[in-house]
């Protein structure tokens, strides 16, 4: 068997077998799935019925409270003390007390309950009272509340992108921003997480003094590449397991707990519709929707509008490319020091471009096609993060391929550079190394 393969196998297996890897692999999907599942679960739990007794001394509001699915209103006319005593201990009953005031428009109420009322209930009560007070005030100043209601309006701005072939596509800026920043940060985290695994691995071999045994059998370059590729496979394994497990948990949950018929109308409709809608369809579509469903529609439509093929392909490419570019630098730093505490001075030039990329991505989501965005997404040191931030907004293919090509060149260059430092560094013990020393190592023949 090829020696590099033997090294890759060891680096991979020794990490995958670690307890920390297994724990991370299991915890990650649980966290991600819970982000999906918990809101769905909460939305679908049927709250038990609540009965609210309304003691309205003003007599203005009592009739305005309409019974809802799980809230029933009951007007009572006893005095406050009796009503409070009658409160049920199990929390099913609560008491809304609106005292009479000297003012023409009352604005205070008390809610008595044995347990904390849900936000649903309190906001509904407040809403009803506010509307009533508003119309009272309007009436007193001689304006017909119906006129006010009729002039209230909502604007839906559909942004539509037209590409060269004249195809129209709805664009969703907020979703693109979130998606871009999310994938950029994910790449940043992965580069650091697995890059420092390479760093630690190299330092471990050096402090263990196993390095000299190994380099008498294989070339230092083979050992370095074996380690870098092995750790990359660990990263990919973890990533794929996360996606798989998250999907499994979410699907399982949806099948077992959620009834598909309970999905909101809009969602059902959208799934039967094509991704690209023409003007008429859009019009018809938005007319069909009840006002409250609008945000849901937008999000679902936005999520469907993204080119997932390009997104996943480029994520994997820029993740691996970015990792490889930086991992060899991490390996070089590891080879130059004797312990992790000494890495600081050399880590700075590696972390600066990465942190810069994250900072700049805030600017880039506001102007994803500007000159800054273009250059930072082309330069190999920042392209893995910045290009991923831009892709959800739509990037011309030639730019993606240019960035990819340059990233490959950049990776070959840093690996060549790192290998020169690495092969000298791994055999140096107990020597404080500075940049001048590294420069000398670069010029050694072998």
């Amino acid at each position, binding site marked *: *068997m090829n*020696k590099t393969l*033997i*090294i890759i196998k*060891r680096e991979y297996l*020794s990490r995958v077998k670690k307890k920390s890897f297994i724990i991370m692999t299991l915890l990650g999907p649980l966290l991600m799935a819970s982000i999906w599942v918990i809101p769905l679960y909460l939305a679908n739990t049927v709250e038990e019925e609540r009965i609210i007794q309304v003691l309205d001394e003003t007599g203005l509001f009592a009739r305005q409270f309409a019974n809802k699915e799980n809230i029933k209103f009951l007007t009572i006319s006893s005095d406050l003390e009796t009503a409070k005593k009658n409160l049920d201990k199990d929390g099913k009953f609560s008491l809304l007390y609106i005292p009479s005031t000297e003012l023409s428009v009352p604005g205070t109420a008390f809610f008595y309950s044995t347990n904390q009322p849900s936000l649903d209930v309190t906001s509904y009560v407040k809403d009803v009272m506010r509307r009533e007070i508003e119309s009272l005030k309007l009436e007193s100043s001689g304006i017909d509340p119906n006129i006010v209601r009729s002039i209230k309006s909502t604007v839906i701005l559909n942004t539509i992108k037209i590409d060269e072939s004249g195809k129209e596509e709805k664009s969703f800026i907020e979703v693109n921003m979130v998606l871009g920043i999310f994938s950029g940060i994910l790449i940043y985290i992965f580069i650091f997480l697995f890059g420092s695994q390479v760093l630690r691995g190299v330092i*471990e*071999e050096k402090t*263990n*003094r*196993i390095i*000299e*045994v*190994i*380099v*008498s*059998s*294989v*070339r*230092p370059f083979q050992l370095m590449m074996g380690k870098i590729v092995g750790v990359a496979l660990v990263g990919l394994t973890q990533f794929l397991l996360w996606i798989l497990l998250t999907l499994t948990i979410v699907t399982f949950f949806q099948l077992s707990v959620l009834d598909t018929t309970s999905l909101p109308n809009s969602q059902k409709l959208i799934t039967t519709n094509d991704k690209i809608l023409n003007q008429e369809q859009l019009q018809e579509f938005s007319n069909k929707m009840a006002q409250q469903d609008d945000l849901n529609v937008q999000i679902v439509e936005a999520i469907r509008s993204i080119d997932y093929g390009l997104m996943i392909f480029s994520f994997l490419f820029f993740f691996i490319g970015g990792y490889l570019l930086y991992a060899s630098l991490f390996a070089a730093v590891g080879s130059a020091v004797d312990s992790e505490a000494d890495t600081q001075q050399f880590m700075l030039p590696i972390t600066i471009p990465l942190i810069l990329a994250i900072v700049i991505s805030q600017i880039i989501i506001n102007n994803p096609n500007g000159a800054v965005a273009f250059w930072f997404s082309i330069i190999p040191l920042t392209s893995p993060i910045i290009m991923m931030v831009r892709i959800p907004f739509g990037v011309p293919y030639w730019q993606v391929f240019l960035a990819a090509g340059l990233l490959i060149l950049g990776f070959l260059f840093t690996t060549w550079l790192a290998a020169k430092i690495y092969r000298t560094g791994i*055999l140096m*013990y107990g020597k404080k190394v500075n940049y001048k020393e590294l420069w*000398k190592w670069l*010029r*050694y*023949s*072998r």
Partner: protein
Amino acid sequence: METLRAENITKQYAGHLALDKVSISVPKGSIFGLLGPNGAGKTSLIRIINQITAPDEGELFFNGNKLTSEHVSKIGYLPEERGLYKKMNVGEQALYLAQLKGLSKADATERLKFWFKKFDIGLWWNKKVEELSKGMQQKVQFIVTVIHQPELLIFDEPFSGFDPINVNLLKEEILKLKEKGNTIIFSTHNMSSVEELCDHIALINKSQKILDGKVSDIKSRFKQNIFELLYSSNASGIGHFLPEKFVLISETEEKHLKKATIRIPENTSPNTLLNFAIQQVEVHGFSEIMPSMNDIFISKVNEFNDSAKKQMP
């Protein structure tokens, strides 16, 4: 027939010359001692032989052919700075290192089981390295050095960290390897083990080779015609009776016998001294004092350093 020949090896690091035209020749089946003070360039030379680094100038030959990466599997190397992955299983780790030397997994397993049993560490196969004592770790390291049955073995300070019992075990194994026809390069500061094991030596000092050859040849080259005479006599001592040019170096009395060390003039047979002594005193013992490797090492290195100092005013 020589297993390894190095010709005019020069290695320059920024700021200092690690090896300056060093040539050595390691005969097949010998134990070759590579000696020299700290920082002389021994480890640099060993790394070049192991192809960990490449020389700037000079050439190496293995069994008469130019040394290439093909020969890696024919060399076994136990470095001075040695260690193992602490968190890894002993068995897995030995298998890994054996496979890196080019053994198949099946072969490696079979041979490892044999050696583990032989060194009495079979029960430790599934243990983590960090659970092993230092001596046991050294045994594992020795095993992975010899597991691929290399023709040439290179041991750099092999005995450091071993207790006396394990040092003996190791010496026996090294001698057994020699009997089987393996060639061994042995780098050490421990001169008594050099006397015990080595057939040939090369002495490196300040990146230059200053002495090499067969141990017996070197010893006779450095002998100073000093003899030890054990005798008894009623007279005061032999010193008064010695002929011209014979120098009495020391004289001591031990119980009934007196012991004198005497240097005889060059090109004089020891028989002359013996004949003379027999006439004067009663001889109980007579032997030549050979210089120890330790003495040769120290005198040769000092001599070299002194002359180097003179050249640089």
